[in-house]
């Protein structure tokens, strides 16, 4: 039980990374590969935030002037993940625009058929 208490966030983030990798490597449809890329992104962000957590800590905001700042969690991973989330949505939008162009050119979104048609 204490093992589960300490490592449940790692197991969740790690499972998301594995499912995202599986979708990217195995599936044939291009839009499903892009969905897998989004899931992989979410898993990595969850892992980064769970590394910076301190047990029985609070959020790093001084909302009243005299708050005890002994047990605040680490603010640096939160700043980095804030940037990473916005870059993730920008990459997804660009990938979807390339998928739309590919569909207009080849007429299908199946990666096997596109590879056969090229050669």
């Amino acid at each position: 039980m204490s093992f589960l208490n300490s490592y449940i966030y790692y197991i969740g983030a790690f499972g998301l990374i594995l499912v995202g990798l599986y979708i990217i490597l195995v599936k044939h449809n291009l839009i499903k590969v892009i969905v897998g890329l989004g899931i992989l992104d979410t898993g990595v962000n969850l892992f980064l935030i769970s590394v910076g957590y301190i047990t029985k800590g609070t959020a790093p905001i001084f909302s009243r002037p005299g708050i005890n700042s002994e047990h605040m969690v680490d603010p640096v991973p939160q700043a980095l993940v804030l940037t990473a989330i916005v870059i993730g949505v920008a990459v997804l939008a660009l990938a979807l625009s390339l998928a739309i162009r590919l569909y207009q050119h080849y007429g299908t979104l199946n990666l096997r058929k596109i590879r056969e048609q090229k050669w």
Partner: protein
Amino acid sequence: MTLVVSFLVVLMLVGAVAASIFRDLISAIIAAALVSLIASILFYFLQAPDVAMAEAAIGAALTAAIFIIAIRRTERFEE
């Protein structure tokens, strides 16, 4: 407390596996939005309110919207 977090993590992993299994692409996108929503709740439990707000606004709403708009211009079912 740990029971609630364990239940949410199991639900998130079931949603991710469901996003890989569904053949209707609209259902796969809604499963991916469910994964983003539960990740936002877990960010709140990890004492990170800024990141939770960003993930809920960007990951759950805008990502699903641009996926559905892109599917409208291509095909809906896999293969």
